[in-house]
């Protein structure tokens, strides 16, 4: 009896283990099955293209005929050493980023601080400020191009009312970038407001309350309590904003795609609205220089990776985490 039983046990354990192993294998198989649609799409349409641009950038590749030759680093030599339009595009992109990001972040934070308490109409005001971010860029940019009209635009009418001269916004090499920056600030501030509001609502109210009891003024409370506690949010918003504005294409395409001569690739008067992203688009889809456009993509990609890496490196040490 006893011997029979002891022989029985290991055998049963063995079958249980085999069962589990079989089930694990079935589990693993269905796991792969479930992730395969998402992974296939991510790999085919993002990962492979992201790696492919490095190979493409060493080719002369005509997008229409589909012919290609290996030309070594010729694309990069031309792009980095001899292409004046690209050099201009880099500077105009930096100009755009430097004009858009600080203003739209400061304004976003300012509005978020004002909205960060229970008050009537709070949701309504937040919605109004956020709406531009959700609306189609084509229609909002089209409306701004009426607002910017040199002769009858409402913005020039406002300037006129204050005794200031009219500005030829989209037709002037000096004014086209500020015009696009104003549009982008209008378009993007609501997003920053919403993220800052979320960050503010996560702060412990006791600290602000304690500072208030201590008699600290609103200004001091903000800089000494709210601002340091909010730094993870601020850092996140900064990163997203810089990356998003560094690769700007669509507003440029709508405001300046036909300005400055469509055959020359647009980009505004004197190419004053040329950005890296827009130049990439024009090289690829107006001139069909796929290899050259891939070289621009590589440069843009590396710039964005460096910005991300720098920010993560610098800020992860400075940012105050609770």
């Amino acid at each position, binding site marked *: 009896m006893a011997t029979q039983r002891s022989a029985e046990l290991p055998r049963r354990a063995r079958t249980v283990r085999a069962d589990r192993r079989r089930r694990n294998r079935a589990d693993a198989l269905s796991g792969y099955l479930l992730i395969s649609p998402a992974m296939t799409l991510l790999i085919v349409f993002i*990962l492979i293209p992201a790696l492919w641009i490095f190979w493409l950038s060493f080719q002369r590749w005509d997008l229409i005929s589909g012919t290609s030759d290996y030309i070594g680093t010729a694309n990069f030599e031309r792009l980095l050493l001899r292409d004046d339009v690209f050099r201009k595009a880099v500077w105009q992109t930096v100009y755009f980023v430097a004009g858009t990001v600080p203003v739209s972040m400061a304004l976003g934070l300012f509005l978020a601080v004002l909205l960060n308490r229970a008050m009537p109409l709070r949701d309504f005001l937040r*919605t109004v400020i956020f709406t531009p971010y959700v609306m189609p860029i084509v229609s909002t940019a089209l409306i701004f191009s009426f607002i910017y009209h040199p002769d009858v635009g409402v913005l020039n009418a406002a300037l006129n009312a204050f005794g200031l001269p009219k500005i030829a916004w989209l037709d002037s090499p000096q004014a086209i970038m500020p015009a696009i920056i104003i549009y982008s600030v209008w378009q993007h501030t609501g997003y920053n407001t919403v993220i800052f509001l979320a960050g503010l609502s996560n702060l412990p109210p006791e600290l602000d309350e304690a500072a208030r009891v201590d008699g600290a003024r609103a200004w001091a409370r903000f800089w000494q309590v709210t601002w340091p506690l909010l730094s993870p949010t601020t850092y996140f918003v900064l990163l997203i904003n810089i990356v998003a504005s560094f690769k700007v294409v669509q507003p440029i395409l709508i405001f300046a795609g036909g300005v400055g001569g469509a055959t020359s690739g647009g980009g505004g008067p004197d190419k004053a609205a040329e950005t890296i992203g827009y130049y990439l688009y024009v090289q690829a889809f107006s001139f069909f220089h796929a290899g050259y456009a891939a070289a621009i993509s590589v440069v843009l990609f590396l710039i964005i990776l460096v910005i991300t890496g720098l920010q993560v490196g610098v800020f992860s040490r400075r940012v105050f985490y609770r």
Partner: protein
Amino acid sequence: MSRRGWLRALELLPRYLVLVPFAALFAFPFYWMLVISLGTLQSVFVFPPILYPLWHWDNYLAAVGLITDPSTGQYLHIPWPRYFLNTVIVATGTTGLVLITSVLGGYAFASMAFPGKKLIFGLVLAVYMVPTEVTLVPNFIILANLHWIDSYQAQIVPFGASVFGIFLMRQFFLGLPNDLWEAAQLDGTGHLRFLWLIAAPLARPPMVTIGLFTFVAAWNAFLWPLIVTNSDSYRPVQVGLQAFSYADATNPVLHAAGSLIVTLPILIIFLLAQRQIVGGIAASGIRG
């Protein structure tokens, strides 16, 4: 009002004095779109501009080609219904595909064990770092080789998987109580049946958020459809609107009417679902 109520109102007043003008500034372009769309060709070229609407509703009929343009006397031949149909097909198709891939992928990453899971999830994270602008050229070549240029699938399939969607679904499924799965296992239910019958129906809230984001993004998509469509049969409204304003630079009134027609559906969706959209952005901080 009580003394306290008055004090509170007085305390809030400075906030409103700043917030209301700012909100007005943010809303002004939409108001201006309405004013121009309801004006006449003469009224919009007056300086200083007329700041209130003139209520010429027939501009909208002219913008959609039902009547002649009141200022030029010509019919506009813009296939709006076709553009709208194309946009609806693309937006719905993309939303459906993203929901499927996100639910399946999110569930597998949250609740199933398979070798290499960590590594593959790391890959998903890496993919999130790649800006779409950078992949325009190779993606175009891929679609050209599939003979997908000028089609619906060219506008749907490349956006059919969303890292944000997978994250959000994974977070949700990680938060599901384990008892549910254990109870289901006692009944001999496998993962697929459990997902279909229990987990997915519970996942309505994150699915609504993902669906709204995807739909809005697909409705507003402009750059990619501009590149991969070249006929009215597949062109979405955004590209149609831009082509319209390029081809006919003479009558801003009708452009404004067209802009409003294209914006209105998304404005309605946004106002109805703003809680989910704003909440979703705040919760995840994704870019649109």
